[in-house]
């Protein structure tokens, strides 16, 4: 699957980036193509491109706070979670996603 997403935590200096790493690493192990944009206190980094969003099958938003630019994902399938799930249980998260998606097919 092509997956794009956003991560953002409260302090915006640590969990944001750990969540991003976890989502990408675990996703790659499971054979997904994952791109995550971070919205830390420094601002938006690794901004998702229009093409990437268009090509994506799923959007993961791992955030404890309000994220900006959600309107870009209109019409996409979106899953929203707090960062701690991405950090502590990325494998379970992907399993859950696969189950949900195959159930809705």
């Amino acid at each position, binding site marked *: 699957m092509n997956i794009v997403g956003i991560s953002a935590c409260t302090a915006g200096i640590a969990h944001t980036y750990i969540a991003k790493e976890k989502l990408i690493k675990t996703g790659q192990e499971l054979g997904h193509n994952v791109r995550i944009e971070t919205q830390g206190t420094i601002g938006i980094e690794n901004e998702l491109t229009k093409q990437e969003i268009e090509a994506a099958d799923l959007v993961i938003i791992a955030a404890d706070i309000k994220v900006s630019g959600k309107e870009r994902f209109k019409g996409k399938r979106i899953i929203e979670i707090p960062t701690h799930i991405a950090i502590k*249980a990325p494998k379970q998260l992907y399993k859950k996603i696969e189950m949900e998606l195959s159930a809705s097919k």
Partner: protein
Amino acid sequence: MLKKLQIKKHALTAISYMLPLVVASGLLIAIGNLTGGTVIENYKESFSIPSALVSLGVLGMGLLAPVISAAIAYSIADRPGIAPGLLMGLIANAIGAGFLGGMLGGFIVGFFVLFLKNHLKVPKWAEGLMPMMIIPLISSVVVGLLMFFVLGLPIVWATDGLTSFLTNMQGSMKFVFGAILGGMAAFDFGGPVNKVASLFADGLLLEGIYEPEAVKILASMVPPFGVTISWILAKALRKKRYTKKEEDNIKIAFPMGVCMITEGVIPIAAVDLLRVVTSCTLGAAVGGGLSMMWNVGSPVPSGGMFIVPAMTHPLLFTLALLIGSTVTGVMLFLWKKEPVENQDFSLDEEEEEMDLSGIKIS
């Protein structure tokens, strides 16, 4: 219902916008105070650079309630929430309702703006006026008057009550309070529980109560220092407690801890959650209790060891920090099991069971 309102997310959004402002303002005040500055009373007379710094910091602190309120309203209602949110925060400042008032005002005005956005129907020609005039005006009038005449008083009472409760606390009571605050602040290494304790301490700072802020700073440093102490103990006594990889993590976590960044401990905690979290929480609780009991106060909300000189009792703070960290360190050393070196302790191998049933793909 409550879950749908996402109260926590809005509050956390506000904290994330507020943090850089508090840190900058607090440090300005501390640097200014240390160099002999005072708040400028009259700008028409000449003043010194330190006084300019202190004054800027105090001005910045005054922005806190408006920023909290605006950020909450923005999180709830998007852009139209910002202007009325700022106004509600100013009301909170003016009537002495402080950050509690700012939070409440932000929530009420945010939900009110959201309601107007979704339910107020205007003729086509007036649609352009909605975001520019109608929403800001109606929400400011309605919630503003509500704040001035109805909600303001109880919040002022609550703020005053809390302030006098904290200033009148004695001995053991102070220790208990400091211990709870410290334990909370260390519990999840900079996560949401820590942020709740943080917000509480930052809010009290605005009311001129400095002690909880010192507890917060202490509790952020106990986990990295405590883990480091347990590692040194293990080295000194030739016992193995950490894998090579964990040792490398500790070497990174310690300097981060000096700067008051607790997050360096996360990789070490993640592989041994129960032991590390329990030891860190207990150590921070002991240190926090002592710091509170010894009346250590910090006018600066962040900055780690670098701002210790700006505290009211730098030596007592260091002592409390040391005792707390030692509690964590000794506990970890005694409790932790000998690790198996060849095993890959990368985080992905062990996952906590999580309840993901509430999560839906939309």
